[in-house]
């Protein structure tokens, strides 16, 4: 039950420095102490069997035959107190509001550029900026119907936003399935604690999407989920959400533009879609307007969209708001649109496009985390403290070649939560992705989220593609 020494310098969310339990974990700690380790191990295996049978897998890219893998699930929940959550909730809501205002502004008058708060070249020269969206006003002025805000913690009161996922954030099915699995395996735990419910998410998602239907929608809006197909890494989630929302799961080849509407091919003919929750990137959305080789999208959908014939969620072009270079401007962005100080802190960020920052970053590579501006999934990044000399010198060369392609951040002392390892409880680094729904009716944040955990001792990389696992995330009632 003791933390290993090398990890003890980090803030642990379950144990205080003296080995006593922190408040939110009191019930969990009591329960764990009373449990038999072999029974828990059997339960852990049982959970994996359920995941495998249900098909809760992700596909690994870059393999000859698409291999389906489980994301390891750890049975020790991650617990957030009511007070902690209230703070996060307010901060997230403020940030998401600002992101939508920013997107509307960027695709209209660009006041923030005129005011000199964000440089013009950060927008016009950005790959994620879509000129096709200029002057387009989506219903309810909602751009990011679904947002996943990645948070990390370094101390009792220190939360940072690591990343805003404003394009097509994934992982919500794990939030829901992890909870289902825990409910099935350890019902007694839930009767002893007041854990807030997350299972309303699919219903809220559907309502939220329907509320953003275009004016041409007739009666109850027709919603559909657009997936790249069964070989996509997140296919399970796409099918899960469509199933839970009771809407169709469509692929590009199910759709075509008929009489100015995007329609799906049903057994009874073509039927118009009002709101398309797309899990396909901007580039592949419309071969006529973007990548002409894309077979995943719908030719002409962007023209229908611009004419108000369909709502695309999230709107095309939202990538400009979660781009890692724009990220460094988020404190200014929040303040500019809300008139308030940001409630959630940004991680201090050096933009390597700036010569002074670049020379600082080059001098301190072994202490910093350097990320590609457009990278994701933990690929293409350098974690200075754990990188070899050779890796650092290779990265230095890349950085010098295209400095504007990179940002750098200090290595954060990410908090830990114990996992149930072979030798009992062992602290591992975690992050948190709460899921936020935005509609003309307001902002809804599910009390919980996806906790990703780096299963390797000492590792700071929590991405599932890099050997990370997940935990059920509990937000406690007051």
């Amino acid at each position, binding site marked *: 039950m003791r933390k290993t020494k090398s990890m003890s310098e980090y803030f642990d969310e379950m144990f205080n420095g003296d080995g006593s339990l922190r408040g939110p974990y009191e019930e969990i700690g009591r329960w764990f102490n009373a449990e038999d380790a072999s029974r828990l191990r059997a339960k852990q295996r049982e959970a994996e069997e359920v995941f*495998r*049978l*249900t*098909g809760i897998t992700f596909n690994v890219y870059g393999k000859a035959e698409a291999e389906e893998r489980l994301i390891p699930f750890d049975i020790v929940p991650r617990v957030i107190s009511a007070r902690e959550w209230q703070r996060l909730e307010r901060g997230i809501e403020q940030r998401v509001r600002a992101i939508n205002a920013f997107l509307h502004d960027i695709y209209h008058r660009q006041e923030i550029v005129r005011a000199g708060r964000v440089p013009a070249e950060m927008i016009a020269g950005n790959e994620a900026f879509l000129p096709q969206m200029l002057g387009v006003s989506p219903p309810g002025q909602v751009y990011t119907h679904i947002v996943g805000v990645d948070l990390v913690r370094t101390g009792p009161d220190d939360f940072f936003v690591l990343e805003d996922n404003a394009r097509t954030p994934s992982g919500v099915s794990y939030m829901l399935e992890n909870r289902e699995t825990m409910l099935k395996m350890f019902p007694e735990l839930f009767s002893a604690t007041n854990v807030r419910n997350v299972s309303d998410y699919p219903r809220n998602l559907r309502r939220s999407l329907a509320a953003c239907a275009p004016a041409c929608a007739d009666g109850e809006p027709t919603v559909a989920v657009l997936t790249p197909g*069964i070989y996509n890494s997140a*296919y399970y989630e796409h*099918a899960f959400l*469509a*199933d839970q929302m009771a809407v*169709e*799961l*469509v*692929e590009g*080849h*199910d759709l075509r533009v008929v009489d100015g509407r995007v329609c*799906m*091919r*049903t*057994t*009874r*003919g073509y039927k118009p879609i009002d709101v398309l929750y797309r899990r396909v990137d901007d580039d592949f959305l419309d071969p006529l307007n973007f990548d002409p080789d894309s077979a995943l999208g719908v030719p002409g959908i962007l023209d229908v969209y611009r004419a108000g014939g369909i709502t695309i969620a999230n709107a095309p072009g939202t990538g400009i708001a979660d781009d890692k270079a724009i990220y460094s401007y988020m404190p200014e962005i929040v303040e500019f649109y809300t008139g308030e100080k940001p409630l959630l802190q940004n991680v201090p960020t050096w933009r390597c496009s700036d010569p002074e920052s670049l020379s600082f970053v080059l001098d301190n590579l072994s202490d910093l985390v350097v990320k590609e501006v457009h990278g994701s999934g933990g690929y293409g990044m350098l974690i200075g403290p754990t990188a070899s000399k050779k890796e650092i010198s290779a990265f230095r060369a890349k950085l010098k070649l295209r400095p504007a392609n990179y940002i750098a951040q200090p290595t954060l002392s990410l908090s830990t939560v114990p996992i149930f390892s072979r030798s009992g409880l062992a602290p591992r680094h975690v992050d948190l992705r709460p899921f936020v729904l935005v509609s003309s009716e307001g902002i809804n944040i599910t009390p919980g989220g996806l906790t990703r955990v780096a299963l390797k001792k000492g590792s700071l990389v929590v991405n599932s593609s890099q050997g990370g696992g997940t935990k059920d995330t509990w937000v406690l009632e007051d």
Partner: protein
Amino acid sequence: MLGKTAGGLFWMSRYLERAENAARLLETGQRMALTRTNNSAEEWGSVLKTAGVLDGYLAKYDEVAKDNAIDWMLRDADNPSSIRSVIKLARDNARLVRTALTHDVWSAVNSTWMQIDEGMKRRVNERDLPGTLELIRQQAALVRGATLGTMLRNDIFDFTRIGTFVERADNTGRILDVKYYVLLPTAFSVGSSLDNIQWESILRSVGAGGGYRMTHGQKTRPSDIAQFLILDQRMPRSLHFCCRKIQENLSYLKKDYGFAGPSCEASNTLFEKYLDLRISDVFEAGLHEYIQDFLTDLGNLSRQIEIDYRFYE
């Protein structure tokens, strides 16, 4: 429902049915080979032909031999109709239509694939063959049970059933196509032990041995067998039964959708042309020609269903 979903349900069921039929054929082939009263290579050749995989087999192997024939039908990745291949296809289709399936049906299909994939990593030796074939049949029964017990009786169910019965009619038809000469009243000396084995193998390959005895007692007559497999209304693998089901399910779709494409009428025509008659009529017209024409018309009906319900673009 999406046209693609209808197609996925149709093909998921066809592939599952195909796997089950192939398992039964393998079982029969194995048994025939063990009786040693006839030429084993010839028998395996006929099994491969019935399963429609003989040409592919001969492209890979020079001659028909038991072990290779079993491996080809069971798990060869080069054979798109091997049991392992079709269960993978069934599972891929089930994933494609995941939102149309109940949890029970999906996990039954998924667990079938998981177990077959695991059990067929290496060649299955003769000793383990019966167990493997039994597993396939049990899993097929599990999927069928989950389908009947948990699915709503709506268009999703209709397409699932249509796929099952098109494939099943095709399978029974193929068995008759390959073995028709055994059933001709003129071509052999009635009552020899060889004939008995052949007849039994036909009944076995559609899992109808018990049903036949229940209906006709111990007396095995070729025309009764033909009658049983083609025209019997109660035998769930007869052409009559399968085509009746296809007709019924298409008529439910017609009622449900308020329209019907040419396939609905084609299913009626198919029934009237081939099943609304006596077995003597069949023999008079020529059993072989009858079966070949039937299989052609069945194939056309299947393609028409795909068009009418917009399975593809």
